[in-house]
């Protein structure tokens, strides 16, 4: 009989303790981020799709069109093209295309790039309705950023 009553009282008390915990949470500030209206800063090591790096002095891409990234890419999603121009040392980049539908974000291209001309972007809002939207012209992207 005593055990029966003790169990009821301790059980009821535990219910009130539970209510106390939830009401404390109720009055504490919200911890969620309201995503489309506010975003968290991306971490520096976030690996998005690749992006060309601009040469700060000339304003042109740092890329020397060596084609190492194209060779390093295991899924052949990078196409690099360049041409010789009068009065310019080395090759000039004319095309840098990334087929993001095939890219697995392994980062071998970034690793193999000697002049550090490509880097990971922090872009993750990549929803789209057409497959063609994922063939990125990285040269145009760099120019649009300028």
């Amino acid at each position, binding site marked *: 009989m005593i055990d029966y009553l003790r169990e009821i009282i301790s059980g009821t008390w535990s219910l009130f303790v539970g209510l106390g915990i939830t009401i404390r949470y*109720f009055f504490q500030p919200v911890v969620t981020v309201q995503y489309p209206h506010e975003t968290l800063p991306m971490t520096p090591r976030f690996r998005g799709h690749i992006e060309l790096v601009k040469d700060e002095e000339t304003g042109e891409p740092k890329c020397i069109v060596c084609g190492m990234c194209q060779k390093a890419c295991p899924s052949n999603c990078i196409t690099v093209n360049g041409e010789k121009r009068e009065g310019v040392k080395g090759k000039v980049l004319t095309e840098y295309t990334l087929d993001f539908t095939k890219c697995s974000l392994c980062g071998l291209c970034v690793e193999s790039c000697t002049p550090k001309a490509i880097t990971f972007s922090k872009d993750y809002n990549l929803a789209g309705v057409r497959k063609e939207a994922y063939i990125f012209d990285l040269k145009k992207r760099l120019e649009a950023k300028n």
Partner: protein
Amino acid sequence: MYVDPEIIRLLAFLIGVIAFAALNAAYLVWLERKEAAHIQRRIGPKEVGPFGLFQPLVDGIKLMTKQLIVPAGVDPVLFKIAPILVMVPAIMSFVTIPFSDTLVARNLDIGLLAIFAFASVNVLGLLLGAWGSRNKYAVISAARVVSQNVAYEIPMLVTVVTLVMISGTMNLSKIVGLQMGGFWHWNIFNFSASPLMPVAFLIFFVCMLAETNRAPFDMAEAESELVAGAFTEYSGMGFGVFFMGEYANIVIGASVATILFLGGWDCPFGLFPGVHWFLIKMYFLIFTVIWIRWTYPRTTFYGLLNLSWKILIPISFVNLILTSAMLKVF
């Protein structure tokens, strides 16, 4: 042309009661979502209107524009009548509830009995809807709901009998009238009638949760094992009416608890009694109901029946005997 003012008064009350029930059903969903969100430290609905206040409106439009599917093989009459059978008794119960000393549609002398009579029709509606659905989940859920309601009606009614013995009347206005003049006169603190009155309030409140099929006693809509229980086959506004009926029943339950134990429209400090105090107490109880839902996990079905038969019923009988003994002695 002469029109009896009593008829106009009743019509006004009818419209008012239906509007009150529908408004509450809509905005309690909003309150539930907001409260659940804040307990989990989220914001909840916030996009539609300021503080998401137009959310119930949009939800209602969504439910109404959905197709009302009547599956092949259901009993067409029972299937359609069941949501109404849940909603109508809830609205009828509002007729006898006194919101203040003047604001009552019909002050019946057997008001308390009428409310409990209407409240049990609610279970019948769920049972018919589930049976008419011809769905095994729905039928299992209905069997649970009926046994749950049978189990919890007993301690609830025994507690109510205790209160009727103390008050000597079933007229809700008179029950409140006996509790006027500060919170120490309320039945929950009426220690001269029985030292177990706060326990009686707790029993009544738990039974109210079980009767309205609220979590942690939501055996009717046991999402984890019975799909959606009795509502499995319902879509669109058929489901919406069930939902509204459920919230209207919560309002009824909170109102009755306010009237029986918390002094109705009486102010705790003896100042300015009125309908606002009734609403404050009622909405505090509803807040607690939602608070409980987002605190406790669901019980098992056996745990639920054990709670009623082994704990609530014996204690409510002890309270009944104690109260009658004290009424005889003092």
